[in-house]
């Protein structure tokens, strides 16, 4: 087990700044998920940690020691690739044993370690097969087995589940979570799937355009996003964003005009002034539809999911709002309803800086 420190890390590809000053502290035994849209630099960061890629500035420390000059094999890391990257001409056994044989383990030692890992991943019957004779999920397990068998100090995953179909993906997600409980090794996991990030992570690092947007525990990020990007990136369906204008400053908040209504919201009066534009973010599950004073809107589409439903509304002022409700939907397409929201559950962002505005508690 190792703790990782990434300090002010900079990476350039020619003129292009791929990472501009990344700072992340990863405690030993922690599972940290790097999440962000494609091109945000998360895979590059992972490859830098693995040693496959160098960097142009800053520090990378394993347990406080610089690892810049160390090649991958001396860092005690293992990397699971998105494409599995199994050796196609080697059997499952040989795939898992390859790394060990490079480290001069004895034959008996290799055999016992591989069979132990194979047992834990339910690969025992497949040891003599070639990768092409395996299903996608089995290949992924072999790739994970190849990583575990070397007992690395740091486990790196590069979008390991994105090639699997939905059912298999949630199953493997569970297996990775179990794996982390068993091994309690430091893990860094890259994904663009926010559901994987939310469910697996001890700590999420949201990245965008080569910078860290926010670091924190999954629910903290979900409940208290520091900016618009984090707010809209986490959560599915996406958070609704409505634009409003500050009309009055009051001691208990400010009055905000948006989507055809005027509402007292708990934004600190010191952060805004009259006439400022504010973005109101509300999660689909925090909006209710029906009786009460709310945003008047027309039902456009209803999606039934069985256990819950999504209603896509279009407000009179033309803004679209998604509402998530339990059970089946009573709403009919074409109806005009009222979307009711609780100001204390909304998120507020400065429309210019896109940073979260301070809220009165």
């Amino acid at each position: 087990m190792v703790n990782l420190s990434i300090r002010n890390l900079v990476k350039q590809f020619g003129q292009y700044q791929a990472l501009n000053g990344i700072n992340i502290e990863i405690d030993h035994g922690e599972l940290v998920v790097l999440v962000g849209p494609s091109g945000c630099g998360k895979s590059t960061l992972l490859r830098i940690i693995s040693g496959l890629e160098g960097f142009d500035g800053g520090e990378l420390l394993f347990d406080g020691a610089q690892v810049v000059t160390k090649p991958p094999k001396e860092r005690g890391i293992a990397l699971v690739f998105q494409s599995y990257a199994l050796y196609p001409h080697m059997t499952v056994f040989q795939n898992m044993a390859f790394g060990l044989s490079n480290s001069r383990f004895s034959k008996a030692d290799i055999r016992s370690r591989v069979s132990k890992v194979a047992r834990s991943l339910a690969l025992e019957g497949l040891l003599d097969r070639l990768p092409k004779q395996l299903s996608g999920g089995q290949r992924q397990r072999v790739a994970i087995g190849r990583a575990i068998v070397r007992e690395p100090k740091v486990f790196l995953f590069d979008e390991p589940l994105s090639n699997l179909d939905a059912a298999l993906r949630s199953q493997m997600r569970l297996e990775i979570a179990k794996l982390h409980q068993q091994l309690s090794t430091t893990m860094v996991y890259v994904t663009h799937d926010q559901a994987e990030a939310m469910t697996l992570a001890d700590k999420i690092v949201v990245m965008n355009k080569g910078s860290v947007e926010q670091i924190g525990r999954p629910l903290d990020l979900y409940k208290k996003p520091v900016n618009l990007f984090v707010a809209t990136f986490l959560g599915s369906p996406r958070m609704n964003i409505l634009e409003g204008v500050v009309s009055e400053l009051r001691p208990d908040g400010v009055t905000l005009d948006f989507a055809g209504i005027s509402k007292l919201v708990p934004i600190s009066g010191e952060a805004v002034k009259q006439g400022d534009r504010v973005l109101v973010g509300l999660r689909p599950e925090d909006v209710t539809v029906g009786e009460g004073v709310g945003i008047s809107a027309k039902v456009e589409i209803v999606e039934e999911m069985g256990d819950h439903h999504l209603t896509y509304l279009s407000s009179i002022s033309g803004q679209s709002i998604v509402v998530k409700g339990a059970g089946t939907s009573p709403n009919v397409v074409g109806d005009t309803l009222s979307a009711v929201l609780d100001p204390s559950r909304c998120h507020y962002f400065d429309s210019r800086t896109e940073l979260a505005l301070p809220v009165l508690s």
Partner: protein
Amino acid sequence: MTRRNWVKSILRLVTVSLIVLYSAFPFYYAIVSSFRSGTDIYKPAYFPTTFSFQNYVSIFKNQPFAQNIVNSLIVASAVVIVSMVLAVPAAYALGRVKFRGRRLILLTVLGTSMFPQIAVLSGMYQLIQSLGLYNSLGALIVSNLMLTVPFTAWMLTIFMRELPKEIEEAAIIDGAGPVKIILRVFLPLLWPAMASTGILAFIAAWNEFLFGLTFVVSNENRTVPVAIALITGTNQRELPWGNIMAASVTVTLPIIILVFIFQRRIVSGLTAGAIKG
């Protein structure tokens, strides 16, 4: 079947037949002629009329033709082996390692194979002489390498580039150095590519004529193409067509056998199952 499809398939059949006829007819004519004897050979006939092994017997009797075949086998095999030993590491460097001047080297490699053989003949002669290889099979191995190494290196570079980068990176993570990556990971994956380039190199060396004619003077050390060209009749004016045809057919067989053996290897894609799937 619609009328259109009908026309299409007939057209396809005709085209394929023409190509087959064009490429196979000379060889067919050689086989037919090789089984004729005496003056029959000068009468044009498209179908076998007589059948005799006389020509085949005489080529082995009147000159060291068996020895020539062995020579060719030695030269061609050695050329293939040495070419591969040189071309695989070269292809690794040119295909997978980034360094300044890589493109220039690649173009130079390609450029050397554009020189006509005759242009390098005198220089090659100097080289052969200084190595003390004149009139030996070694001379032919060294000179043929000039023909085979550039294109084997070039082709393997292309194949090497197509191998997924992740597999190489997985091996690096697994702690394998460059030599181990080449031998344990790339070589098995390149096997089909090596088989096909190897056969091309073998054919090139097997058919090579100019170096064979120039650098070897004694009958016993000659390779097959030169030996066939120098087959003489009973007198100066007689051209021993029958013998030449028999000899040509004989030396084509090893190539055909080789292609049949490796055909399946060449076609099969070994990388299946490496990524995704």
